[in-house]
């Protein structure tokens, strides 16, 4: 399974549901999608529950999006991390930097 991207547009929030594998091949598509949804006054959320594989390329994408969204005044956070994604974030220390929305029902 490669990458799936589904975008749900709410009034004040874009929610991007990612699934499959995020690596150096699929990462640029994720980055392009997220960057295009950064808008002042809107919130950008990324759902990671269906992500089966992610490596440091994915962290690189989130670092870039985090910086761009901060500059644009568009809150950015992730939700529903799979256990693998959480492990990657914790090992690298990225867990301390990224905004995580918890207790969110799908």
């Amino acid at each position, binding site marked *: 399974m490669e990458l799936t991207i589904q975008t749900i547009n709410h009034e004040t929030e874009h929610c991007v549901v990612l699934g499959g594998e995020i690596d*150096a*091949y699929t990462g640029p598509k994720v980055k392009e999608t997220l960057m295009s949804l950064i808008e002042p006054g809107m919130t950008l959320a990324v759902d990671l529950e269906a992500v089966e594989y992610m*490596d440091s*390329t994915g962290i690189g*994408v989130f670092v870039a999006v985090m910086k761009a969204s901060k500059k644009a005044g568009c809150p950015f956070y992730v939700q529903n991390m799979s256990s693998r994604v959480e492990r990657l974030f914790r090992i*690298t220390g990225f867990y*301390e930097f990224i905004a995580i929305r918890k207790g969110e029902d799908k």
Partner: protein
Amino acid sequence: MDPNNPSADVIQLTLPNRVEYLGVARLLVSGVANRMGFSYEDIEDIKLAVGEACTNAVEHAYEQEDGTNSLHLECRVYEDRLVIEVADQGKGFSVESAKKQATPLYSGIDQEDLVEGGLGLYLIHALMDEVVFHTDAGVSVSMTKYLRRDGVAGDDRTISKNQI
């Protein structure tokens, strides 16, 4: 132990040194690790380490503006461990950038100082039991993961029974 021990089963894969084949490299190692009886978590860790090593090799090939090299993957299956070697034919990935990449960890820094990339080598070291870089005849990396037997030593019989 001698890494060239003839008792090891050897599985080799040569693939184009391009990002679209990274998933194929991961599939190979997860298949081999699964057959050996590694736990789900260990298999995912091995996949991630190999994914990082292959990404490093592929990106270096791009830096050299020479995407024609091939990426070589070798799995050596021992009774108690899996050794995976990743090498790209030709120039190899630079040891200098490898050294740099082994250092930065996302801790004790400001959010503004986060960089995109530079975690690959750190992750390989964190996820695998032994990591060795070879610089003769290009650059390659050997990564070893030991089979954990629930902390009980000498229950080899259980393992072989499971494999039947």
